[in-house]
């Protein structure tokens, strides 16, 4: 007869055993306590620790507490360090700030916690061993995905009016196509339902959706025109002419237009006024993008530098020298962290868009890129002529290989990633191609911000809400959260203020002689009195000034003497 092997202990049994052991230890300990009666403080502490640990194990085995949130996830929602309570005097205020900070902390943790509710997972490609993702062709991708997704890869042959440009709405539901020779079409690219198709009978330089999909702007041969989704021309803006590039700043309701003469204009589309106009001195402006993080416009010049512009300042708010050759293309990723610039020196450089001091990555590519585009997840598409290369994880870390590669038969003119979809729309010389790029789109949208599935009523409501929340154009600056910060003078300003003290003039006084009885005054007396009054003001002023300066000097002296006092005692013998 076989003797059955003892079963391996289950976790629960092990835990039970442990508990029993702990109980035994506790009993021994308590026995010891009874024996010794007097315990040292150290022993008492140790004992307490052990008993507490035992309690925790007991509790833990039955009711596990709230699962901790992974630190990396919390960091994503973190909005920076809070206010330190160090300088705050007064218990009440200190406590108040502490509570506030705790609330922020809790909110951050909670938003990290609800990440578990996100229903969609992003796409991607997992290559087999020895296989590289860049070898995977578009046909293979289409074959390996479901029918609905496969339908997103399509091609439009439009031979007559090319080359074509493409733009998507911010929620990725609608698409705008425009041929250089005047052909323009807007359609819902999910359903492929055409909203309008017109020919403006003029050359088209750029196109752009406004805040909703029912309106779009079109930079034509001479002027800027605005159309609605039926193709009706709503406005012809003659004050904005010869436009090369268009950008729409959705939160400010500004349509930014860069003209052929290098003039930047910001049109407030909610009131129809040009709120800002700047001369960039860059003739034949060909690259212009907006930074979605702070709504600053970036233009690349033929000299190789990139300048950043706001409607409030005639000079660029930032300027950096990127390439030793003309900047041919640039883009900023949707989170506003990275900026990619491409030059005709066959290089693509990645910059930290908030700290412009140094390049993060420099890529040498075999051509001068004419187009660069970022996707929501940080994929970067680079193209020139018939070549299209897509890079992954290329900003914070250096990457060697392309993620995907595609070759076209026609020249690529323009390309854009579709928001919230794994799709890249490419406008070419003779049509439009929609490519499937797995992992390009943000999987989970926030329906209260941008909703690809929005109804007409939701769109209308959203439009009203957005208009109410229109940020004034005066608030555009490099740091978008400057409004929440305390306005403290910088070191430079402080020094300047101090230096200004030397050049201050005494205040001019407006001396008015009192009306005196006849014979008592006289112009001579008046003039003398006036002089006396002025001299007195002058004297007082200089006296005050000298007091101020002396005060500063004495402050410095006390500082010095303090330094002396800190010296070693025996120094006087040296």
């Amino acid at each position, binding site marked *: 007869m076989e003797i059955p092997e003892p079963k391996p202990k289950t976790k629960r049994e092990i835990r039970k055993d442990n508990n029993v052991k702990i109980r035994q230890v506790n009993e021994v300990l308590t026995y010891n306590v009874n024996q010794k009666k007097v315990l040292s403080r150290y022993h008492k502490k140790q004992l307490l620790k052990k008993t507490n640990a035992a309690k925790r194990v007991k509790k833990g085995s039955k009711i596990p507490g709230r699962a901790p949130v992974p630190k990396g996830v919390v960091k994503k929602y973190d909005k920076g360090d809070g206010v330190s309570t160090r300088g705050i005097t007064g218990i009440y205020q200190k406590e108040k700030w502490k509570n506030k900070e705790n609330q922020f902390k809790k909110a951050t943790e909670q938003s990290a916690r609800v*990440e578990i509710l996100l229903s969609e997972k992003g796409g*991607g490609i997992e290559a087999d061993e020895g296989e590289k993702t860049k070898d995977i062709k578009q046909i293979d991708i289409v074959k*390996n995905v479901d029918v609905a997704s496969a339908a997103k890869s399509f091609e439009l042959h439009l031979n007559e009016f090319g080359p074509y440009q493409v733009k998507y709405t911010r929620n990725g539901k609608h698409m705008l196509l425009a041929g250089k020779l005047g052909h323009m079409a807007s359609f819902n690219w999910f359903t492929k339902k055409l909203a309008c198709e017109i020919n403006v009978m003029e050359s088209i330089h750029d196109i752009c959706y406004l805040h909703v999909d029912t309106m779009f702007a079109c930079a034509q041969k001479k002027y800027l025109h605005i159309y609605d989704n039926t193709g009706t021309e709503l406005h012809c803006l003659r004050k904005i002419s010869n436009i090369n590039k268009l950008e729409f700043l959705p*939160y400010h309701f500004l349509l930014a237009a860069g003209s052929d003469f290098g003039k930047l204009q910001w049109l407030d589309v909610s009131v129809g006024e040009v709120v800002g106009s700047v001369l960039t001195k860059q003739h034949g402006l060909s690259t212009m993008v907006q930074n979605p993080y702070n709504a600053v416009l970036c233009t690349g010049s033929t000299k190789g530098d990139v300048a950043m512009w706001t409607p409030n300042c005639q000079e660029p708010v930032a300027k950096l020298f990127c390439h030793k050759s003309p900047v041919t293309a640039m883009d900023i990723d949707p989170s506003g962290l990275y900026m990619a610039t491409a030059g005709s020196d066959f290089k693509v450089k990645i910059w930290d868009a908030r700290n412009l001091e140094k390049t993060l990555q420099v890529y040498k590519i075999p051509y001068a890129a004419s187009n660069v585009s970022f996707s929501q997840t940080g994929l970067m598409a680079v193209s020139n002529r018939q070549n299209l290369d897509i890079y992954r994880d290329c900003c914070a870390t250096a990457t060697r290989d392309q993620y995907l590669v595609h070759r076209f038969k026609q020249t690529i003119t323009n390309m854009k990633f579709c928001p919230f979809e794994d799709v890249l729309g490419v406008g070419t010389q003779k049509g439009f191609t929609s490519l499937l790029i797995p992992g390009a789109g943000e999987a989970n949208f926030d329906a209260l911000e941008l*909703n690809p599935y929005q109804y007409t009523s939701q769109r209308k409501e959203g439009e009203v809400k957005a208009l109410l929340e229109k940020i004034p154009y005066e608030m555009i600056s490099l740091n978008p959260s400057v409004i929440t910060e305390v306005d403290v003078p910088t070191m430079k300003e402080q020094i300047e203020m101090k230096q200004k003290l030397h050049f201050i003039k005494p205040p001019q006084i407006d001396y008015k002689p009192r009306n005196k009885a006849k014979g008592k005054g006289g112009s001579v007396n008046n003039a003398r009195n006036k002089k006396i009054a002025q001299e007195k003001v002058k004297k007082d002023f200089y006296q005050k000034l000298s007091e101020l300066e002396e005060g500063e000097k004495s402050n410095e002296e006390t500082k010095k003497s303090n330094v002396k006092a800190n010296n070693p005692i025996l120094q006087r013998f040296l």
Partner: protein
Amino acid sequence: MKIKVLSRDPNQYIRETKSETHKLKRNFDPKLHQFEAAREYVRALNATKLDKVFAKPFIGNLDGHRDSISCISKHPTSLSLLLSGAYNGELRVWDIPQKKCIREIQAHDGVLRGISYTNDGQHFFSIGDDKNIKMWSSQAPLRPEDEEPANTILSKSIISGISHHFTEDKFATCGEVCQLWEESRNSSIKTYEWGVDTLHDVAFNPVQSNLLGACAADRSIILYDIRETKPLRKLVMALKSNKICWNPMEAFNFTVASEDFNLYTFDTRNLKCPVTMHVDHVSAVMSLDYAPTGKEFVTGSYDKTIRIFEVDKVHSREVYHTKRMQRLTSVQWTLDNKYILSASDEMNIRIWKARASEKLGPLKQREKAALNYSEALKDKYAAHPKIKKIAQRRHVPKHVYNAQMEMKTIRKAHRRKDANRKLHSKPGSTKTKPEILKKIVREDA
């Protein structure tokens, strides 16, 4: 090779039928919420502006009295009842929601000085210049002709104020002396005197219910404990106090409305220095009443305006006025913390909202959430100059504005004079006293 492409099932994002609410999936990733600070600021600005747009505090008035109203009193438990007494001795009971007078009594000969409900609200007392203390049943008789007091007490001295105990069947009156009465007896059970000529207001503490405060004509404030035989403490101020009111939440704090246009909040533990001096009125403050939360109080002044103060703030947060409203005699904050009732010289009782832009009536959950959100935003960005300017601006009548300017000039002149005096005297010989301490003369115990 494994390939996954985003492919959403529309059914998860689109509602099935029209009766359903929209499916709104959220993602709190900061990347999808750009310009958070700037947008919040704009929202806060809009919320502040909307507050101004919706600030319509006046709800209605109760008219019917044939003479100026001297006092009003709210019911201790019922929100809809209000008592009012007029200078012609007439007493009226009002139904506030219907804005109707439900009872009318000719209670006294001459002026009716004060009214007070009993702690259970079954009866109320009225006093008048005819030295009578009359107790009335809250239940109206079937015929108005049968209106008769349940009890009448003839006092020996003139009575000018009354306040009922909050838990027991006792009440206190003031006049030449402060007297304590029991409902069931016809003579006073205790009399307090402290060498003053007359007292004109008396108030029981709602929490520390044996404590009693009174304002005297010799500019003093006197505190009594009804368990003792003698008054407790006395504080003499620079000018007369018109009204005293205890904080219903912080038993040790009380506020007095002074003849010098200001109000003073005191802590009974340290009477020598007021906790806060509340300024803004441009004429004598006649009456005040605390909100049931104890965080705010309303004041009525001789300058024809009503102001609302926060307990710990110097300046008022709100001012109410109308063209027709005359000098205020009495104000009350209702016990649901929503309305303010004011009685004025031109025979009207007015009903106001306690928060000028508050939406009345039941609120939906989402509405409530939105209001709370905008409230939080306003608080967060309150210090920004643009928002502060909008939030603080109040239109005041011309006579108030002119008086404010005049007071400003006077204050400036005083300050200049003090500075000059200090400048031209021996260093250390002049002491500057804080404004708040100048109003306190001495404390007797």
